[in-house]
């Protein structure tokens, strides 16, 4: 960092490539951001060394709060890898951390551990499943932040009823701090109330074409019977909508049928066996530069799925006897984002011991 002190005037450098910086809820340290974006080789190496140091610490930590190292590592990674994407291993680190302590009772309601999960959920397409898993495993259930995040997820998909339910459940459980949860709940209620009032207003004033006397199409109207005699409802396009559609290329049925029967005759060789369907190549796939592979389910996701298949009551109990047991400390080999061999872990411990001995000798 020292090498950058002389460059304070360049503090706005990062703005030149700010499209490469993912926003962080808690903000970013400008110095660190500059360092992480720098093309300077020494800066890059410095970051790499720091990362290696964190990775090593995760594996040789022997105190009583292993989460602390993870917590600092995650915060450091967020600050130092602002770009996201491939080079960003944050999702992997969050997942490994979440997985490692999921059965550690002591951390179940630790705000740091919950925040690991909440950050991880942002990378997951199936957040609800994870919230269900956390809830049934008692992770974060005493913390207000858990219910706030869960309710927010429901609200984001427009399920205000469920969101309200989650808020109430949190308040009922006395999640800590309740005051924050209650405030958030009130804000949420105000939001939904405002939304429903404005929606009503819109209906009263006739929607988006104020002077239209035509009936509106019921929103994505499914054919539900209306009235006593269960008559089909009006499902008309309003003038406004028809206008929009007119811009789109529109072909009458007669034109379409003309196109399908060409004016010339297609010559067919009668001796040749007929091919029932035109052989087609999937050119669409070829034209794509590189097709993105579907994300394979992660270890964590699989463990969540398996735990949800069994009854919730036994989910806190030790996992059922596995048929295969690897005879080495696997979680240390693939802890964090970097791979370590036995020798490397042993070397870290060896060096640590040597350092301590040197300190004691002084």
């Amino acid at each position, binding site marked *: 960092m020292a090498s950058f002190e002389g460059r304070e005037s360049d503090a706005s450098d990062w703005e030149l490539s700010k499209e490469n910086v993912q926003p962080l809820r808690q903000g970013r340290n400008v110095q660190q951001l500059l360092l992480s974006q720098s093309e300077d080789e020494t800066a890059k190496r410095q970051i790499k060394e720091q990362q290696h140091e964190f990775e090593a610490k995760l594996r040789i930590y022997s105190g009583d709060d292993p989460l602390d190292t993870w917590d600092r590592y995650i915060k450091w990674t967020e600050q130092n890898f602002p770009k996201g994407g491939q080079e960003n291993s944050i999702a992997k680190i969050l997942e490994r951390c979440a997985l490692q302590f999921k059965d550690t009772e002591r951390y179940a309601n630790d705000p740091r551990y919950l925040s690991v999960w909440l950050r991880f959920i942002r990378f997951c397409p199936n957040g609800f499943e994870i919230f269900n898993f956390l809830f049934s495993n008692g992770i974060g259930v005493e913390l207000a932040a858990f219910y706030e995040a869960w309710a927010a997820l429901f609200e984001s998909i427009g399920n205000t009823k469920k969101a309200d339910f989650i808020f109430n459940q949190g308040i009922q459980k006395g999640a800590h701090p309740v005051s924050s949860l209650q405030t958030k709940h009130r804000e949420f209620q105000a939001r939904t109330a405002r939304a429903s009032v404005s929606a009503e207003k819109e209906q009263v004033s006739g929607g988006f074409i104020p002077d239209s006397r035509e009936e509106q199409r019921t929103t994505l109207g499914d054919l539900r019977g209306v009235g006593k005699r269960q008559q089909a409802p009006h499902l008309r396009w309003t003038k406004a909508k028809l206008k929009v559609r007119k811009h789109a290329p529109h072909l009458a049925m007669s034109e379409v049928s003309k196109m399908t029967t060409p004016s010339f005759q297609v010559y067919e060789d009668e001796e040749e066996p007929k091919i029932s369907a035109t052989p087609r190549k999937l050119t669409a796939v070829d034209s794509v530069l590189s097709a993105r592979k579907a994300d394979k389910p992660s270890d964590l996701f699989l463990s969540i799925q398996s735990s949800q298949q069994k009854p919730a009551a036994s989910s806190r109990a030790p996992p059922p*006897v*596995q*048929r*295969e*047991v*690897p*005879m*080495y*400390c696997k979680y*240390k*080999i693939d802890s964090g984002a970097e*791979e370590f*061999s*036995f*020798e*490397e*872990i*042993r*070397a870290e*411990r*060896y*060096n640590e011991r*040597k350092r301590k001995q040197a300190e004691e000798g002084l």
Partner: protein
Amino acid sequence: MTAGELPNESKLNNPPDDGISALKFGPGSSQFLLVSSWDCTVRLFDVSTNFMRMKYNHSAAVLDCCFQDNVHAYSGGLDKTLKAYDFNTNSETQVGSHDSAIRCVEYCPEVNVVVTGSWDSTVKLWDPRAPCSVGTYSQPDKVYTMAMCGDKLLVGTAGRKVLVWDLRNMGFVQQRRESSLKYQTRCIRAFPNKQGYVLSAIEGRVAVEYLDPSAEVQKKKYAFKCHRIKEDGVEKIYPVNAIAFHSQYNTFATGGSDGYVNIWDGFNKKRLCQLHRYPSSIAALSFSHDGQMLAIASSYMYEQDEMANTPPDTIYIRRVSDQETKPK
């Protein structure tokens, strides 16, 4: 101490005080065995008289060593330094260094070059005549294991990568491969007939691979499970840490953290024998050049983390029979 429990097996006197990282029989003679250890030493044993001839030190744990000839040795480890040692004059030379620990040290007699692989994700070549560095070649990840296959160099790195280099032309990588095993690569050793190599992984599996990239030859490659123990319906899967080839028969021995040594006939897909269980993990194996002796390092590798009462680090010298090593 001199006599083992078996008539054809003996324990070496004066073994290292800490984990054994590598052992190598000398070229052209089955008299000398070179042993590197986490206790910072490299020891030269005279196997025929069960006597420790010589010992020299590094400033930190030594991770690998090799013979150049019967009187010259090279070694490297956590002190990042490559040392050359002359047993005739009892003198050591610091040849050079890496940016991180040196994990592998090998000598290639065909090209007369010493090769080191490091956790700094590079391989360096050293000229034993000078001695000095003659080139640094970057690898995709940290180097975990290396093997010589004639004038070819096989490098196994983290991330399950395998690279094939030509020591006569280091301008480009000859082949970039991925391990056919799912888990971390522990060890790679080449067939003495230079057709291929054997790769072992951290979870009880070994792969037999061929270097010839033609589809016909590649069809012959395969992998098998080993070093697993079934108890009460539970299968315990152990890391396979060591591989050693019998130079004449092209058969090979594997050693696992289960404490077992198995000898295999790779071409006929047969297990020739299983030796008795050793007290701790098999950390290293080496056949003597004539294939009459097998050196076995039984030494805990901290694969299950810190443990109390680990068995002492021991080197066994076993006289092996044709029945145990020759294809049937």
